[in-house]
């Protein structure tokens, strides 16, 4: 037993700092948010005193009641989930061929291709969104081309900028690397011998993909889907800058509570609901992932 102690100590030393980091920067703020959600908003912003002038403890569920009784907030939630889901599916469809191409290319090209995937991270997120304002603007080549094609079919011209289309395009653009990287990490480890064996036994290209490669890549798909879906669900900068008058998502709503409305408790409730939605989805993805991993072993 005494011989084990140092290793246990070492384990704690190694896992301690990240654990502490999570505790301080994730658990504590979440707890503060939960507490704030049961309090009243302050007249001038912030929170009202915990004990009011009459000496009564001011704790209530008003903000939760408001969330569940006003349908408009749920509507915005559903819309945000829809945008995030669309983004995830489009990213998956675009990232899969790209990731397998990178995984199958030679060692020399592979590093370069990976570098290209993460290259956009070298410039600031907001600058990249502003760049899309120029690309999608009505006087840019893209909008002119699209509208010329539409005109040829006798359709009315459409604006590309300030539209749901712009929001979706940009969401896919900023999320794509988060789908490519986990997929690549998974696909790169696949054993080529399996596919060779399948081919020898008469499986065609589609069967080889659908019955071998795709099931084996599912953990990468789930990881990528979670990395894309969850941030996309809470985003506010993209609809703010590129969206049209209808493109208000849950992230914009939360931002409004803390800025213009100065209603911290309701902002906290919306944030908690968003965190819960993300947790449930991540949990479900993990559960499906584990179950399918169990299936493939059986």
């Amino acid at each position, binding site marked *: 037993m005494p011989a084990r102690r140092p290793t246990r100590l070492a384990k704690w030393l190694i896992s301690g700092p990240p654990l502490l980091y999570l505790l301080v920067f994730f658990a504590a703020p979440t707890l503060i948010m939960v507490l704030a959600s049961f309090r009243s908003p*302050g007249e*001038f*912003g912030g929170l009202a005193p915990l004990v009011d002038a009459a000496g009564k403890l001011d704790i209530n569920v008003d903000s939760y009641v408001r969330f569940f009784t006003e349908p*408009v907030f749920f*509507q915005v939630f559903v819309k945000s989930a829809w945008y995030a889901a669309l983004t995830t599916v489009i990213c998956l469809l675009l990232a899969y061929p790209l990731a397998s191409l990178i995984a199958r290319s030679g060692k020399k090209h592979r590093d370069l291709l990976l570098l290209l995937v993460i290259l956009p991270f070298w410039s600031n997120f907001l600058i990249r969104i502003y760049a899309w304002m120029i690309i999608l603007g009505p006087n840019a080549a893209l909008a002119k081309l699209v509208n010329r094609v539409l005109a040829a079919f006798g359709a009315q011209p459409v604006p590309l900028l300030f539209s749901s289309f712009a929001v979706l395009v940009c969401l896919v653009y900023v999320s794509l690397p988060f789908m490519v990287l986990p997929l690549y990490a998974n696909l790169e480890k696949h054993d080529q011998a399996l596919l060779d064996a399948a081919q020898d036994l008469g499986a065609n290209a589609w069967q080889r993909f659908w019955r071998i490669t795709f099931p084996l890549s599912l953990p990468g798909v789930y990881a990528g889907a979670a990395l894309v879906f969850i941030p996309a669900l809470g985003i506010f900068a993209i609809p703010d800058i590129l*969206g049209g008058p*209808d493109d208000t998502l849950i992230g914009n709503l939360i931002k409004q509570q803390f*800025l213009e409305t*100065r209603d911290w408790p309701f902002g906290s409730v919306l944030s908690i609901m968003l965190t819960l939605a993300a947790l449930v989805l991540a949990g479900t993805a993990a559960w499906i992932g584990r179950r399918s991993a169990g299936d493939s072993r059986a």
Partner: protein
Amino acid sequence: MNFRAIAALLAATVALAAPAHAKDELHLYNWNNYIAPETIKRFEAQCNCDVVQTYYSDNDELLAKLAAGARGYDILVPTSNAVQTLIGGGQLKRIDKTAIPNIKNIDPAYLNTQFDPGNQYSVPYAMSTTIIGYNDVKMKELGLPTDTWAVIFDPKYLQKVKGRVTVLDSANELFAAALKYLGYSVNDVDPKHWNEAADVIKKAKPYWAAFNASSYIRELATGNIWLVHGYSNDIFQANQDAQAAHRPFHILQGMPKQGAVLAVDNMVIHKDAPRPDLALRFINFMLEGRNSADLTNLIGSGNPNMDAIRYIQPAILKLPAVFPPKDVQAKLEQLKDLTIKQRRLRNQLWTEIKAAR
């Protein structure tokens, strides 16, 4: 790395850090682009100190940051309703008037307002109005009026400019404009009138390209957007950009005949200011006509400083949205702060407007 390299690096760090400690610093938390660079240089030379600026893009950002406990600022430049909020929240330090004799330069019409009776905490800095901005060539082509909120809210006019209009992404500003359009005060708090305003906004929304607070200056200047509900400073800026790029049009300011929101921004001292002495010197310095005029000449802001007038470019003095004549002044109103109950109701209506199809 050997010992000598580390020692050299340390010495360099100390050498770099030292001058910053030697000199006094004034921390100014200000709107983006809201003081002329030459004014800063002049003050730095006069006080033998450094002005360290940080920026915010709206009052809400300033209030949220201070409510969350941000400290270290000497001077803030909030709009009157935010001054009211900051005073209510006990965030400000009283201003010693004997230290700022130049306050005599301020037009009495802008002193002793309901937001800060007796100017115990705040001194007017600059002003803007929330008005109509438009592309003169396009509006003339389409035969649209530019002196009424109807052009922003009435589908009869909007159908001609569908998709070429933006409005501010601010519930308070947009409701104020809609209330004015309906003939009410911008500070009307009757929920019935708010519902009417919300209906006006919902009917006009399908014709607007976006709710926009950040990029409409650029969109106006490039000719992508032809009509906006926006701030007089921004519209002035858009025209300067359009002229600099030799565009074949001007971006002009339209003062709606129903009246509009006037925003007066004020210098205040934070209660935990590290250098209240420098802050007072700065306020007195900014109240000098020439220094105050620099900002107006740079961004086309309105100016409550009577001594500044003689330094301001005549072309700017002629703009009615920047220097409103008496009859226009009578129709301008400053926004008052809302109570939390009113803010919740407004947010409810705003969310419904945004989510409506």
